[in-house]
């Protein structure tokens, strides 16, 4: 009785996982598949294998410009966010001062305010000050929205530390700087690596804010949006998206692999699950 029911639930569980897997991954895999299809129409039947769309995508000046814009932007935004976010997390978890509650509240709010509203407010703000909308305005807005994410991830990590190590270091005569570099940063390393990748992804994938505060400077998501608004589906977009998705998958995978290796060497059970869930818990 129990085993029969157990088999039924296992079967149902498998069915659920497979169905969700197909629905979530299927479209992306088909998108990649059709980037190799030798036809300008994205439809069955499959006409044959070609790399033509990749050649065309890499020769398209607008596509390349948008991609370069996005990569440069995220590469600048991510490290700045890690520094600002970690400094904020440190201050609000390790010190008690009168305005602490105000600042820790303020830094949490941008995480809940919709990006649409932030984008619109930014647009009106820059327009009022008559600042021209360029990649720089997008960049500062990305920094503003993304460093609170780093703060949340790093603070979640900091509150679980043994504080005594830091105090021991100070009592034994270490300077604030030595305590930071020798005691705190090594322990924070996995959280910092994770937040760097998340910050990069937030900036790279952000659509709303880039759309409203970018003016004529397009990032990659804004370019894709523009192409899709103005024309039909294009194999060129498939090729570009496939390239980028492959890079994104590899980056996340290697980050995960690296963090696991470091954690194993240190003998701590710091699996992906704790890393990911610490951010939302």
């Amino acid at each position, binding site marked *: 009785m129990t085993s029969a029911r157990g088999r039924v639930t296992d079967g149902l569980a498998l069915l659920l996982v497979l169905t969700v897997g197909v629905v979530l991954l299927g479209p992306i895999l088909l998108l990649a598949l059709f980037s190799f299809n030798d036809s300008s129409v994205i439809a069955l039947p499959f006409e044959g294998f070609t790399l033509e769309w990749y050649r065309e995508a890499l020769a398209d000046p607008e596509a390349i410009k948008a991609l370069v814009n996005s990569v440069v932007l995220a590469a600048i935004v991510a490290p700045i966010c890690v520094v600002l976010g970690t400094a904020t997390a440190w201050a609000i978890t390790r010190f008690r001062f009168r305005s602490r509650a105000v600042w820790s509240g303020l830094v949490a709010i941008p995480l809940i305010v919709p990006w649409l509203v932030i984008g619109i407010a930014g647009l009106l703000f820059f327009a009022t000050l008559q600042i021209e909308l360029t990649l720089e305005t997008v960049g500062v*807005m990305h920094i503003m929205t993304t460093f609170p994410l780093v703060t949340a991830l790093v603070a*979640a990590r900091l509150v679980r530390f043994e504080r005594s190590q830091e105090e021991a270091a100070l009592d034994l005569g270490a300077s604030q700087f030595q305590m930071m570099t020798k005691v705190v940063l090594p322990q924070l390393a996995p959280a910092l690596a994770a937040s760097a990748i998340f910050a990069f992804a937030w900036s790279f994938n952000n659509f709303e804010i880039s759309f409203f505060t970018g003016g004529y400077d397009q990032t990659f998501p804004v370019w894709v949006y523009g192409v899709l608004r103005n024309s039909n589906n294009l194999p060129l977009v498939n090729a570009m998206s496939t390239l980028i998705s492959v890079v994104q998958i590899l980056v996340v995978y290697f980050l995960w692999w690296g963090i696991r290796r470091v954690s194993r060497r240190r003998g701590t059970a710091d699996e992906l699950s704790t890393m990911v869930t610490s951010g939302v818990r």
Partner: protein
Amino acid sequence: METTSVKAPTQLTDSALVNEASGSRRSVARWLPAAYLTVPMLILLVLFVLPMVLLALISVGKGINGAESMWSIGAYTSLLSDPLYLTIAKTTIIIATSAMVIQLIIGVPLAYVMAFKAGRFEIPMLLGLVILDELNPIVRIYAWRMLLGRNGIINGALESLGIIDQPIDALLFNKFAVILVLSTGWITYTIIPIYAAMKAIDPRLFQAAQDLGAGWWTITRRILIPLAAPGIFVAVLLVYIPLFTDFAAPSLVGGTSGYMLGQAVNDLILGQGDLARGAALSFMLLLATGVVAVVAYRLARINRLET
């Protein structure tokens, strides 16, 4: 993600005591927080608080360099009395709520499977969800459009199999398409908090309940759901707001019947240049999301205290 403000206070006391105990360190501690916080908080004040204040001012008619500048709630009253915007608001609520419910119906069992049944597939599934979320959202919307369109892959496949002879138009550019795209787009953020809450449940509770004769429905209703409730409310807090204000998905797959408030804001400001009404609508969206956030946050906290 609001852990900062939730967890920090209890953790502070010992260090504060140490800081106060030793005089020299106390003076250091005075200016250190300021050293860490000045730049980040200036960024938030200038690029977040100021624009929000400006948005509020514009919504009540006080544009800074606009021609007319007088206090007026005209933008709000004209939006609220316009049946068009009420219809759009209704569509938005229907779409966002359906997408949220669908995600919970899928997410709760899936989180359960991941937390208790998946075994060695647990971490790969989690990694898969994270990777999925790192993929570009616009690209993921595009992938669905490619599948569902009039000349899309699904219609093409059905036609060549002889199941239909006319392409089905009902697949794309409607509410259904937006709900599908949104539910698949945010599923990572729905599953992970629920999964995290379920990971904290002692599996022996299920065994004990089973030994005492409880069926799977009783176990789900009396043990699993109550203990996972904080995670469920966090998921709602994280996901419902972006669903409610989404702008890319409805404008790429929504057509006219899937027109949402996010698009209305965009069209008011960039399309018609009606800054006051656009700002007013943004503010009302913000207010609505604020209500959702407060309710979900309260429920998550209350449930955590009770368990």
